[in-house]
């Protein structure tokens, strides 16, 4: 009864979808504009509802003006096994102050009334989505103006149907690629990917250490680029302008999460926006400084 491995099965059954249905999406437009300007995107992660609903709405509304090109909005889960302590605590604060998935979608709806350009990507874990109802969630997310989904615990082996439904609704399923991902797995991951690829910078949880491995990433990113037309974002552990700039030189987008969430917790919305501005400036100067 030896069981064939999941990976083998997956590559047999999943066929790559060569045409992204979201070519005219907010994400595609934003990346096209950034490419024209020869600049990497700053992707900011904040936990929806952290530290409380009104501060969280305020922060979300002001992030684009502070330099966020794309916003990742965390959907809280009680047991975020791939996240470090900063984001776990952010989820606990949000939960304690009454945040729910329905409220998170409402935040996006409100944001969209004032900003129809900044892409919003929801990031989280499956269980709250399933509880809400997968189809109901996808429908509501699309209607609210969500552009994409990052589902940490939904590997492509289990994700084909959800990806197809998400695509039908114009929602990008952003694939996570890890340092441990062997080249043979990439086609299956990328086949279910739209929007951009999220390259996890190192083996670890979110926010776990400072990143000085931009050089090591270089060749890995080249390999990714050869296999996929999608922009590549790098995240997990980007904490300061220097690291952000180093990554901005080799990737299409830089994701900053835990550092921002920690700043918000320690010093409030204005301080978090100040950090966003610093990071945006570092990224804007990154490629100019090099050329």
């Amino acid at each position: 009864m030896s069981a064939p491995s999941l990976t083998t099965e997956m590559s047999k059954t999943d066929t790559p979808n060569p045409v992204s249905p979201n070519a005219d999406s907010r994400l595609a437009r934003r990346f096209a504009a950034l490419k024209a300007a020869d600049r990497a995107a700053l992707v900011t992660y904040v936990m929806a509802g952290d530290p409380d609903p009104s501060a969280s709405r305020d922060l979300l509304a002001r992030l684009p003006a502070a330099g966020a090109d794309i916003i990742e909005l965390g959907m809280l889960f009680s047991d975020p096994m791939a996240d470090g302590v900063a984001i776990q605590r952010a989820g606990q604060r949000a939960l304690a102050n009454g945040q729910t998935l329905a409220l998170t979608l409402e935040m996006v709806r409100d944001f969209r009334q004032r900003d129809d350009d900044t892409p919003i990507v929801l990031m989280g874990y499956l269980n709250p989505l399933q509880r809400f109802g997968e189809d109901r969630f996808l429908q509501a997310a699309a209607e609210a103006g969500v552009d994409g989904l990052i589902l940490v615990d939904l590997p492509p082996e289990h994700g084909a149907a959800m990806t197809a439904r998400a695509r039908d609704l114009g929602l990008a399923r952003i694939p996570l690629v890890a340092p441990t991902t062997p080249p043979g797995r990439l086609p299956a991951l990328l086949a279910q990917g739209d929007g951009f690829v999220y390259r996890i910078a190192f083996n670890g949880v979110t926010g776990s250490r400072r990143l000085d491995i931009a050089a090591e990433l270089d060749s890995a990113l080249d390999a990714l680029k050869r296999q996929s037309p999608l922009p590549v974002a790098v995240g997990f552990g980007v904490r300061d302008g220097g690291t952000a700039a180093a990554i901005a030189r080799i990737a299409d987008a830089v994701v900053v999460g835990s550092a921002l969430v920690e700043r918000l917790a320690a010093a409030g919305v204005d301080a978090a926006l100040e950090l966003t501005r610093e990071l945006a400036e570092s990224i804007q100067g990154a490629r100019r400084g090099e050329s």
Partner: protein
Amino acid sequence: MNSTLKTLPDHNGFFVPAVPGGHPSGRRCRDVKNFSRKFLGGSPGDGHGTQLNRGYGGRYVAETLMPLIGEIEAAYDDARADPAFQARLHELQRDYVGRATPLYFAERLTEHFGGAQIYLKREDLNHTGAHKINNALGQALLAQRMGRQRLIAETGAGMHGVAVATVAARLGLGCVVYMGATDIERQQPNVQRMRLLGAEIVPVHSGTATLKDAMNEALRDWVANVDDTFYIIGTVAGPAPYPRMVRDFQAVIGVETREQLLATQGRLPDTLVACVGGGSNAMGLFHAFLDDAAVTLVGVEAAGEGLESGRHAASLNGGEPGILHGNRTYLLQDGDGQIRDAHSISAGLDYPGVGPEHAYLHDSGRASYVAVTDDEALEAVGLCCRLEGILPALESAHALYHAGQLAAAQGPDQVIVVCLSGRGDKDMDTITRHLMPEEAQA
């Protein structure tokens, strides 16, 4: 009955009915929407997509771990088929763990209840005092075979942690045990024991600071140390292949029970009873009997302060299907899909989920699951001490209590086997506080 039961899970790590038309037992599935229809309806073109609701189990983990878990599955299947690996495992089970454990006729408990004959499968007599070492030994040998130098584990009551620390010492491997701060407080003897064995204990303060949080932290450690680390999950849960692998390593319990009862009584038992937190001792006892339709399987969950109180750890009796720790199974959760705190007097049952194969056996009707409260378990501890001279673990006492109730309602021709999964020395503080409050104050 059909032999397909024993070959579960399928190649995707899902425990799903393998026979068109329903479960081999002929009983209807309770949760048709989630269980049988989508699977049996067979939409062959849909690849892997609709499996979210197809069965229990699966592999819902972060991408960093996916390739690694695939490696473990391949290495496990390879080891499983390797006679040298099996011989080494068997030798250590016999000479180091002390297997086979006795199947003991509990004469005075039987007399006390005045009905069915009660037998105890004495897993408490294993080295380290519980069934946990069956699995810890198997996985540690696999880790060694894969060249991993560092073992990590989560532990609730500490019995799995002690078992892993023990085999790590024996095999010369490093060992880090994650344990909820709450559990560290209530299981001090085991904490000291693990340290003495050379393990590093990492207190977990996040979340509710119990077993589920220890598991979250162990998974985080693993993600950060994929190169040299092997995660020994202590129960029949987690991403595939863990539920199957742990079940296989624990299956020795049922295999021995079957042989022992056939040898001494020339018959199979009528009923098997085992406690269920994650459910590894229960799966271990049940597995060899899954195809024996005449053998009734009963899992006993922790009802804590009562199912109606909301303070319990009975995922099957009081939870709903969802996804946690890499598998789809029954979970204690709220309406928003956030995991609820479990409660049980026994730290080993204090987990808001259950192994996916139990979820499958529950829905299919092959096994039934009841729940026993803190007070009832304590009552069974006292009874077993006074009548049999055996101090059972609080976990095992849940099964003992229910077996007593069953025995009283049955005739003397019936045979019940209870898995006495562990000994109760670790619980002396808790037991003393509840059963002998005057001693506790002294």
